[in-house]
């Protein structure tokens, strides 16, 4: 049974609390039990509690599949890019290097690439993926476009990402602040990475209307 067309995966890093419920739940998924396929990392723990969860974005034209010399990576009819096929994967690691989102991983012990398949055993029969079901902040959300529009008026789902000259369209959406998204309905990843980060990389409004990078502890003497 194909995954219902109307159900989508949305990531909102703004909501993420870094609890790792998704990572723990991912290891319970039947296609890769015991192994988590989610990347959840602090951006820079020394300066912020900001974490970003990354699942496979399930590209319309998956770079990982395009660079695979063994044609081991398949995209299902309903748009899910699967882990490498055991019978074909030569564990060369091309996909690991090429994926602009840094998703696939090579498992040396098994000589295979594995990655998030949106809990295909669950999502293909209309269930939510494990991570999005358990996520306590709903930074990972699985549902319809109507639901997300109704529940998240402050942000807009975007699924076009620019990496230099390459623009990638994905099955998974990233929630972007509505004001930014109306101006530019895609995320320019290269430009964002080139931006000079704030001295304090956390957005903290200690003083409303004041600078967002104000140090709330500036007045504390040691």
């Amino acid at each position, binding site marked *: 049974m194909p995954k219902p067309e109307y159900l989508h995966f949305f990531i909102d890093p*703004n*909501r*993420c*609390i*870094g*609890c*790792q*419920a998704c*990572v*723990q*739940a991912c*290891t*319970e998924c*039947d*296609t890769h*039990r*015991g192994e988590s396929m989610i990347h959840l990392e602090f951006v820079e*723990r*020394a*300066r*912020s*509690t*900001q*974490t970003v969860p990354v699942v496979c974005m399930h590209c319309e034209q998956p770079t990982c599949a395009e660079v695979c010399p063994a044609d081991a990576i398949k995209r299902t009819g309903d748009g899910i890019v699967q882990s490498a096929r055991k019978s074909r994967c030569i564990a060369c690691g091309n996909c690991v290097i090429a994926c602009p989102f840094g998703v696939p991983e090579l498992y040396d012990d098994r000589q295979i690439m594995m990655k998030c398949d949106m809990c295909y055993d669950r999502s293909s029969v209309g269930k*939510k993926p*494990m991570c999005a*079901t*358990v*996520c*306590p*902040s*709903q930074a990972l959300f699985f549902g319809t476009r109507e639901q997300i529009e109704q*529940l*998240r*008026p*402050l942000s807009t789902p975007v699924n076009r990402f620019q990496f230099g000259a390459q623009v990638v369209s994905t099955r998974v959406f990233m929630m972007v602040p509505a004001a930014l998204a109306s101006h530019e309905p895609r995320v320019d990843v290269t430009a964002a990475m080139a931006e000079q980060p704030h001295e*304090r990389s*956390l*957005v*903290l*409004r*200690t*003083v*409303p209307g004041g600078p967002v990078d104000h*140090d*709330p*502890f500036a*007045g*504390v*003497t*040691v």
Partner: protein
Amino acid sequence: MAAIPVDDLKITERFGPHRSAMTGVRLSTSVEPERLVKTHCCFCGQQCGIQLKVRDNEVIGFEPWEEFPFNRGMLCPKGVKRYLQGSHPDRLLTALRRDPTSPHGFAPMPYADAIARTAAEISRIQQTHGPQSVALLGGASLTTEKTYLLGKFARVCLKTPYIDYNGRLCMVSAGAANKKAFGIDRTTNPWSDMVGTEVIWVAGSNVAECSPITTNYLWQAREQGAKIIVQDPRITPVARTCDLYLPVKPGRDAALFAGVLNLMIEHGWIDREFIETYTVGFDVVARYCAEWPPARTAEVSGVPERSIRQAAEWWGTAKSSFLFHARGIEHHSNGVQNALGTINLVLATGRIGKPKSGYGTIVGQANGQGGREHGQKCDQLPGWRDISNPEHRRYVAGVWGIDESDLPGPGVDAYELFRKIDRGEVKALLSICFNPKVSLPDNAFVTRCLERLEFYAAIDFFLNDTARHADIVLPGSLHEEDEGTVTQVECRVIKINKAVECPGEARQDWRIIQDLAHALGRPRGFTFNSPREIFDELRVASKGGVADYSGITYEKIERQMGIFWPCYSEDPKTGAPVDHPGTPRLFERGSYNPIAKGKGPFYFEDGKARFNVAEYRPPVDDANAEYPLFLTTGRVVSQFLSGTQTRRIGPLVNQYPEPRIEMHPRLAAKFGIQDGEWTVAETPRGAITLRAMVVTTIRPDTIFIPYHWPGEKSPNRLTVAAQDPISKIPQYKVCGCRIRRASAPPAYATILEPQQ
């Protein structure tokens, strides 16, 4: 004789904590469960609904329970991996007796002999020293049925006043403040009321790590326009994106609340009509707050004046609001005052008892709410009745079939109980669901007390750190091996369902208590055949009390997916039998309650809420010249309380293996400490050596250490045994301390596994 029988390490070798892992059927993708059991998580007060996968009397995994309304399938990492506590190599499968000649300090013994020996020792000590020489310690992770039975067992069978519980470390400041202000102790609104409100004030709650499911309510409220104010000495994950962060100095919360209320009064941002009609005591509070102009408030609280003004304006001018607090403001020798300070902010605006406007306290333990209502607290009888109130005593004595004069009076709080042990007044202890050697402050003192006991029996499923001192260990039940009810954070009474049978000689805890009553020769009142029978008696015992459960049945809980108490069997107004639906929201205008009898919505005879002066007092053992930093303690998301369960679950240990000392880079630089380096934290009580975690997300004058580990990794070696004079909660959240770079790694680093 309750010194540990052999070296700690020898006990650890045999009894753990060892880490469980996904192996065997739990790793298989082809093994199907025989059934799914709908129940709840065994850990925190959120009490998320979950389905356990069961096969061959083993919990082999979980499936989200998306229909349960509170969490709709959401779980934190503890909930996801909770099933790995079952079939654990450390599980106690027999009773144990202390045996210094055994290589690991304990020898197995037949269950019946262990019961007989425990009863004989209790009898001997009580005959020599009187009934009050024996004490009981319970816990708020137990089902309400068990806590009810424990209270009854202490008073009716052991005839001792000395019973208390680990909620003393958790919920008592909130409880005492609620009772003083509202006449009833519970969160006022269901969490769904948060969504759609204008302002949410989070006072001292690391929501993301301690009550993760609440995060989605918070974020959803923000999506619908709520501004979020977070008051915390650390920039927690929820504080990171809040609209206003109040970086309060540890132990200064009451000053902040007074300063904010002062500004609200000054600007007329209060609801005079509500105050006039529905409250008493405002003028005295206003006079006290007048002593807190913004400059003084800022100086004392450590919060910049402009932030205090902004908080007052947002809170004062909102049309709807929600305030909730947790241990951050409650774990103080001023904990009740702090909680009263928040309540004053709520009452002054009149924003309570309405949809989208309320007040709540986030309970810490599974049954943090239900576990404090039905009689394991030293001063209390079922239904939130008062053990010193003659009318209450007569009612409960009647239910229990004893003479009121035979019912003991109030006992003492859990910490005072240890002081009584120290003074030799209490000679024997029976404990369940409590690990004071890790969880009480200044725990070197607690250890000395345990060593002074003449006899100590512990009921537990794993050998916890405290139970290592026991003469007898009785093998109790895991959460999934019994049924019963608990009351979660919103005050929804829910049903825990049994998934598997107890393994080996382990028994359901209520059976162990009853077996003891029988062996003591006083079986009357302890002949229940099931938790349901206990619950049915509890319904009667709570009837007419403030926490009235009389209209609740197991079937009704399942049908309604939880019932908010009070839930009456007879209409409080007419006395006619009623199929009462429960009370999701308290204090609605025009509502009737059995105390006020229609005079008003609050639970006092005049129906009015009470303003209480919430006085700021500096912490006991505050930072000083010799110990210039503030030490504060708390949780991490993957661990729970003293770690008896979570330090045995491999994936949770791996997520955050060992405690670290969180400190600001400016502080670290002053002492030449790099991230990850061994650092000594020291107070007059002791010193511990842990690795540093250098982050800008904490006040530079404060260090934070999570408290889930024992022995040389336990920050409760450092904390002070100062208690709130009313609630007796310990002051875990602040004391003076100092740090230095360690000259060498601690000895334990090469000996102990991270979870040990």
